[in-house]
């Protein structure tokens, strides 16, 4: 009998199925657990017209893809760089219509993703009743609850073609463990796989499968929900791998300054940070040092 099939893959192979116009879900939230190594690979490939969904919140992940010209539509409840300010590339391209915005609240995206995970046509929420959200986003359909008659909003199932996630650890079968919060990654994986899409996860470390058989409760996402595991040490950089290492605030500040300086500056930033490094290892060696890594680890538990 042949044995089990490993799901380990390099980033290039894992993203081979990504077609222009695909609905791509990105996991994590804000500056945490963003699969930046995969995001950079998507930008390197020159993907076009993507519909990007992030739940709950996005930052440099989506703004970078927008800057790289990969994105046609953004379905993100919050897109901003928190203490670094607004998402400037997004703002620029949304203002002149190059990027379409699907206005939404977190719980509306979740309702649509839950519907997909359950293989149902729509999800129901109270969120958005009495607001402009259903006016600017016609996919959010005002309806009446069939039991009480009260106003509700129905959100059509959101079925990503591909999900990009970042976990702390994974094994070759596709089991994933998060040191910190998995945010909505479980739901993203469920919604994507249930609808036939591919779930690609980068992990800081590939660990032996015995790690999970020794304690199966360790797995936040089971292997049946994962198609490919991409080994990518510090693969969330410049975002944090939540509970494992911190986000790189100086790098983020430099990114934001380039965005502020305009599209030419952004193109130079992308050339240097996304296109020039020939590999993930080359990226790490170019933009990080052992002492910087130690500092990003140390900051996790820092008590002043």
């Amino acid at each position, binding site marked *: 009998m042949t044995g089990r099939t490993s799901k380990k893959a390099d980033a290039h192979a894992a993203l081979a199925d990504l077609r222009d116009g695909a609905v791509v879900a990105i996991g994590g939230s804000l500056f945490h657990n963003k699969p930046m190594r995969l995001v950079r690979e998507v930008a390197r490939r020159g993907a076009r017209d993507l519909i990007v969904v992030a739940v709950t919140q996005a930052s440099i992940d989506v703004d970078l893809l927008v800057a790289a010209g990969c994105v046609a539509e953004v379905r993100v409840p919050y897109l901003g760089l928190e203490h670094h300010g607004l998402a400037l590339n997004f703002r620029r391209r949304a203002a002149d219509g190059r990027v379409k915005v699907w206005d939404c609240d977190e719980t509306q995206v979740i309702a649509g993703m839950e519907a997909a995970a359950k293989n149902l046509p729509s999800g129901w929420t109270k969120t958005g009743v009495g607001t402009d959200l259903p006016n600017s986003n016609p996919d959010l359909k005002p309806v009446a609850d069939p039991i009480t008659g009260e106003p509700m909003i129905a959100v059509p199932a959101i079925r990503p073609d591909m999900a990009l996630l970042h976990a702390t650890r994974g094994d070759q079968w596709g089991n994933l463990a998060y040191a910190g919060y998995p945010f909505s990654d479980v739901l993203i994986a*469920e919604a994507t796989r249930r609808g036939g899409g591919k779930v690609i996860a980068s992990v800081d470390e590939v660990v032996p499968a015995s790690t999970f058989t020794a304690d*199966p409760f360790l*797995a936040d996402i089971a292997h*049946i929900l994962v198609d490919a595991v991409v080994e990518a040490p510090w693969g969330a950089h410049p975002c944090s791998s939540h509970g494992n290492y911190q986000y790189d605030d100086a790098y983020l500040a430099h990114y934001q300054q380039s965005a502020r300086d305009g599209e030419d500056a952004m193109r130079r930033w992308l050339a240097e940070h996304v296109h020039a490094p020939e590999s993930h290892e080359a990226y790490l060696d170019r933009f990080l040092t052992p002492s910087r890594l130690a500092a990003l680890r140390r900051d996790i538990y820092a008590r002043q």
Partner: protein
Amino acid sequence: MPANDMPWSWPELAAIVLSRELADGEVGSPGGSRSEIPLAAARLAQLTRAPNLAIITSAAGFVANMVDKPWSPLVSSTMDWRNVYAGTEAVLPSSGVFHTRRDWFFAGALQVDGHGNINLTRVRLKDGGEMRGPGAAGLAYSATMAQRYFIYMHEHSRRSFVQRLDYRTAIGFGDGPGSREALGLRGGGPALVISPRGVMDFDERTLRLRLRSVHPGQSVEALVANTGCELIVPSVVPSTPAPSEQELDVLRRQVDRGGVLRR
């Protein structure tokens, strides 16, 4: 149950026949009454032809694969810790148990009809009273949503294979062609029915129950005489392929060392 003089028990035969239906890479849930039969079927498949098959404990979230795992006993109670923990690599959150695809699941039933609809709710008795079954469990869901499913009946009689169900707990092919489509159901409906007498599937055109094979030692005539619903009987009905030596060997040495299926 009809006599069985074979060198295997009816539950063993059921586990082996059902095991052959499971394909590599699939995800499914053993369940139903005497759930040790489908659990054995799935483990046997993993250890013979389908190393990438994943088992999810029905209505709990243990995702298990027995390839290269230490042996663990097969136990009667579905959610017994020994059953669910064996070979487990990941545990789905309870919120997500019904958020994952099921390529297959197993159902027992009080009654089945000629379109594979099943009753687990209540049966009318001759005295006008009713016998209440255990309830739908999750079978109304699975029958609606899973890719395909297998019905295993411990009794093959005119009381269990009926023309008209006393209660339709879970839908098979409904009233026939077009029923599932009109209701927007997911999945393909029932794939197979196995009983102590034989194996049945469904005719592609009429979606009616059709005899596929009779078990070694059983007769077509007795099976037909004990079937209360319409049944398509082809002119030639082969014998259910007997368990191979390898199947019986893996089943008894690696899956059911304790002999639960022989009790």
